[in-house]
């Protein structure tokens, strides 16, 4: 049985295809303005890579932005449930998931089966999201992917105070003009982003094991800050942590397809 999960984020679209409980492949692309376009593009690309067609998919669950209008999906589930399922399937000991997505930042607590117990999510401010990291990277004049490695080289990290990333971007531009070391600024960016994520997680209540998912998890500087603040190592996923939502959707698709037959 072949099932698929499709997670349309604000910044990236992710798709996972599974066969009989194993991951066959996954794909991550930059999102387009329209969710349907993003979903179709990422799924076309993944199916092409795997040599499959839409007809081969027995069941598909979509999640994320515009999850209810994806033409090839059979059902849609909230990204919070999908993240819980995906993370728990990969590492069953996980109880708390901190997810740094493109435009939202969430903390999710799950039970031993990966069902969501409770969660917190940003509603008024985008601090702690991938998009805020992108803007701050723009202020520093580096690619967002360089921020993590750069921040580990810091010798005297700057302390950024303002949670608002637009204001912080301006503060960063001032620091650049003053000649502050890029690594020290990158470390300041990691620190303020991690603090924001921790604020949500602590409000929710943190249980071990703790994992970080979403694009932000790829920033080693932020992971380092979180681990130091939490005084514990974060779970290492055997797969790309950015696909956890799409993977959860695929697992739920398998469940549903199983119930159908």
């Amino acid at each position, binding site marked *: 049985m072949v099932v698929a999960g499709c997670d349309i984020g604000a910044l990236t679209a992710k798709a996972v295809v599974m066969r009989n409980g194993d991951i066959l492949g996954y794909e991550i692309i930059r999102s387009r303005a329209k969710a349907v376009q993003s979903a179709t593009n990422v799924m076309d690309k993944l199916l092409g890579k795997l040599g499959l067609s839409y007809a081969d998919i027995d069941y598909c669950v979509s999640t994320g932005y515009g999850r209810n209008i994806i033409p090839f999906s059979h059902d849609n589930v909230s990204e919070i449930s999908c993240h819980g399922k995906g993370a728990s399937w990969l590492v069953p000991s996980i109880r708390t998931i901190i997810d740094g997505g493109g435009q939202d930042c969430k903390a999710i607590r799950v039970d031993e089966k990966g069902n969501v117990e409770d969660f917190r999510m940003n509603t008024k401010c985008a601090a702690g999201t991938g998009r805020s990291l992108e*803007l701050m990277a723009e202020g*520093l004049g580096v690619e967002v992917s360089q921020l993590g490695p750069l921040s580990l080289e810091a010798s005297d990290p700057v302390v950024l105070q303002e949670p608002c990333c637009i204001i912080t971007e301006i503060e960063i531009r001032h620091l650049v003009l003053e000649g502050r070391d890029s690594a020290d600024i990158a470390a300041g960016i990691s620190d303020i982003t991690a603090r924001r994520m921790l604020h949500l997680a602590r409000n929710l209540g943190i249980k071990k094991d703790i994992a970080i998912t979403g694009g932000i998890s790829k920033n080693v500087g932020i992971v380092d800050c979180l681990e130091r603040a939490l005084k514990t190592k974060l779970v290492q996923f055997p797969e790309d942590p950015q696909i956890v939502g799409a993977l959860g959707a695929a697992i739920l698709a398998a469940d549903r397809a199983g119930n159908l037959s």
Partner: protein
Amino acid sequence: MIYAGCDLGILSAKVAIVENGDILAFEILPYRSLPRQAAVEAMERALDKAGISAKQVDYCLSTGFGKKAVPYTDDIAPDVMCLHRAVRKLNPRVRTVIDVGGHTFTAFNIDDNGKITESAITDKCAAGTGKFIEVMAKALEMPLEELSEASLSSNNPLRITSQCVILAESDVISYVNDGYDPYDIFAGIALTVADKIAGLIRRVSVNEEVAMVGGVAKNSIVVRDFEGVLGLKLADLVGVDPQIIGAFGAALMAEEERPAS
């Protein structure tokens, strides 16, 4: 004698070259991350347009966010003073000036004797700045000029409620996904921006005539909505590009400081 002014802003470098109080040439150069280089290149281009060499510039002042980083400047000049000089020269009837730049609002009053009375500057709110508009135009995947012109005829502006730039961007993306007209979306953005600017100008007295300068003053729909909110017509600046007012003022101040003997 030839004078120059460079206004190094957060999103663009502006240079004006002036002889006997008249603009010989100017240049506006948007940049992403290298402000110093942008300042140098903008000057080279302006000199080219004026058909003169750098040596022919007798005195140069810099202003704006990066004023201290302009390598060729002879001295720096305060932002408000530069705006004041240029606006006085272009239209002495102006009593209130609002500068809406890439990231900062500046507003001040001029009395009948030409003295600055009240002033207010804020860089703690990004909603309503050039950066905000730029991010929204990118989310719509359309050129800003086209959006601001074509949205003028929208009859159904869609309101954006989020104060956070990134969440407002997210609102825009949702509107696009729901199939709304991009010009209606942009018309809503313009209203939000106009409201924000009107709120900020009220930190000083709104005495007529009111002049709006800075990059956002070139956005026709924002200007129209701003006039609507305040119930007045903005002052005429005799066709000088509102984005170079700071640079023009810096060049005028250079002339004042080192007059031809």
